[in-house]
């Protein structure tokens, strides 16, 4: 593979790894605090799916980079500005409605992404996609069913769901952003073009929203910058907790 494409694939793998790690960590924050025991297992289950994907993505990124970096180096030893996750995944959990909507928004993008990535010209990346596509299909279903029940539930659950839509919808356009990295990879058949997944995302979200009696905001101000390492304040707090042990005890094994 020529160096230009290697660099692009490396950067895309880190982006995806960061998305998975950060959202996985956010979901893990619910462990022990969920509204019911069943969800107290369901959310860490989803968190572990995502952290498993992050591990595979970071490991492959390290191999392609060829500088001896392993998964832990990416997760624990990078600064905030080096993280290139989209802003959606770092948003605080808020209430259960926020968490489930965030999960639906993200999974409805990643499920078709992985579906398409199964055909990648890079075998290792295609293998990660083949495993992840099933995991994300369940996330879409689980989060979607909750959004439907809360949106079309009681007066209070519907209000909370509408507030979540108002808060989080502005972070969704960033999912579909393209740049030199995604263009090069799409052209070489290495990874899907994010913009091409928009119709499928629209279809899934619209179907859930119709049943949930929710509406997309007519006007909103799209937020972006995560892919360039420009994050909100919340990511710093998240990384402090995520990286504390690894940084306090450098090189420790457990």
């Amino acid at each position, binding site marked *: 593979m020529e160096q230009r494409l290697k660099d692009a694939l490396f950067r895309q793998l880190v982006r995806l790894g960061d998305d998975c790690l950060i959202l996985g960590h956010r979901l893990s924050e619910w462990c022990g605090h969920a509204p*019911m025991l*069943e*969800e107290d*297992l369901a959310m860490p*289950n989803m968190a572990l799916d995502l952290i498993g994907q992050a591990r595979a993505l970071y490991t492959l990124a390290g191999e392609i980079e060829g500088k001896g970096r392993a998964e832990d180096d990416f997760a624990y030893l990078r600064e905030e500005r080096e993280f290139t996750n989209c802003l959606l995944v770092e948003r605080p959990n808020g209430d259960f409605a926020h968490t489930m909507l965030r999960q639906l928004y993200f999974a409805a993008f990643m499920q078709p992404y992985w579906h398409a990535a199964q055909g990648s010209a890079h075998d290792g990346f295609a293998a990660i996609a083949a495993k992840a596509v099933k995991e994300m299909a369940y996330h879409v*279903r*689980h989060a979607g069913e909750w959004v439907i*029940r809360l949106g079309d539930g009681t007066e209070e659950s519907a209000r909370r769901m509408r507030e979540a839509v108002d808060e989080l919808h502005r972070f969704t356009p960033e999912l579909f952003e393209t740049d030199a990295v995604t263009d090069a990879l799409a052209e070489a058949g290495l990874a899907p073009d994010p913009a091409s997944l928009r119709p499928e995302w629209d279809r899934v979200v619209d179907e859930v929203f119709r049943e949930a009696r929710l509406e997309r905001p007519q006007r909103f101000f799209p937020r972006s910058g995560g892919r360039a390492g420009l994050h909100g304040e919340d990511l710093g707090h998240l990384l402090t907790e995520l990286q504390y042990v690894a940084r306090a005890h450098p090189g420790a094994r457990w």
Partner: protein
Amino acid sequence: MTEETPLWEVFIRPRNGLSHKHVGSVHAADAELALQAARDVYTRRGEGVSIWVVPSRAIVASDPARKDENFEPAASKIYRHPTFYDIPEEVGHM
């Protein structure tokens, strides 16, 4: 809580060819969420290939106070067990 999320009994089939076995229960608002809760609670270690959930209130149980009259009469009827036949070796496990 329990009015909004009633109890469901969960049955898991571990492999094709085996029957579903009762493994426990979950709270859930409706059948679809009960299936998902059962999946998340009881199949995390690869325990199953199929899940049934049944509303607990739909289960009719025998009365524990009638345990003796229900089950003791069977204890003395060992002739009901097919253990008095010699099975030819060629038959193998039955």
